[in-house]
């Protein structure tokens, strides 16, 4: 029986240690299979293996890291951390400014289309809930909230202010009277 070369013993011991998280039966199975592979490879040399032979066989096997990595490919990858515009304070300011600009653009039509501030209000409420609940897309909800609130404030303010001005002008001036030319009676 051939003595186990120290390099092989170290390789197998390292592999066994690195697989400590595996099911014990699977761990033993993998280590035994690799040991058998080495035995067969060295046996096929038909001469006493030299240090170079052992190193070549181990090199063909790959590193212990390679083998361990192949044991656990079913492990789900770590979830990717998604970057969001509102991850930084600067990003929050930029998105808020974008919301402000959008609000100013929408302000002239918000008087006619009252649905705009109403929709902004609903979206702000929904996005705040999505943000607070910290679900899968909570960062997207946060960005939506930061964008929506300035739109809501601008369009809401413009709508309320202009409605108030219009109402007061009506109460001061009264109902406009139609100008009707009355034909002179003969």
């Amino acid at each position, binding site marked *: 029986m051939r003595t186990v070369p120290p390099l092989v013993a170290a390789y197998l011991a390292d592999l066994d240690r690195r697989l400590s998280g595996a099911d014990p039966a699977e761990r033993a*199975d993998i280590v035994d*299979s690799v040991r*058998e592979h080495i035995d*067969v*490879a060295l046996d*096929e040399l038909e001469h006493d293996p030299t240090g170079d032979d052992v190193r070549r066989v181990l090199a063909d096997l790959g*590193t212990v890291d*390679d*083998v361990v990595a*192949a044991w656990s490919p079913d492990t789900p990858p770590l979830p990717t951390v998604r970057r969001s515009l509102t991850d930084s304070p600067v990003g929050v300011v930029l998105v808020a400014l974008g919301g402000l600009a959008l609000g100013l653009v929408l302000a002239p039509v918000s008087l006619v289309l009252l649905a705009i501030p109403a929709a902004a209000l609903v979206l702000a409420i929904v996005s705040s809930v999505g943000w607070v609940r910290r679900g899968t897309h909570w960062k997207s909800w946060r960005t939506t909230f930061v964008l929506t609130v300035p739109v809501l404030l601008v369009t809401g303010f413009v709508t309320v202010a202009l409605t108030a001005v219009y109402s007061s002008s009506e109460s001061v001036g009264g109902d406009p009277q139609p100008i009707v030319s009355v034909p002179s009676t003969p």
Partner: protein
Amino acid sequence: MRHMEPKGSEAHAVLTQLRRGTLEYCVLAHLDRGPSYGQDIARALGGDDILFGSEGTLYPLLTRLRRRRWVDTTWQESPTGPPRRYHALTDEGRDALRSFVAVWEPFRTGVDHLMKGIA
């Protein structure tokens, strides 16, 4: 023809992902021809550096195939050396291989069609 593993970390990452999805079926395909032992499978699949990065990665894969009952393993005496574990395809493994082949053909055609002409 011997292929060499593409260079570069991005190419290596792509190759690793592709191997994870296909290598075990390549082992099943090899065993479809008859029972085989580890060294033999490693030689057959590792002839080029495309399917295998290193021979040692075969053994965790075989353990996984055994766990799924796609492969059955028995010890057999060797006329030239120590006893060897022979791995054989089970009926479940054969079914899995057939399912893979049925999906692989249209999958490969679709990918080839999309990738055609891209340098």
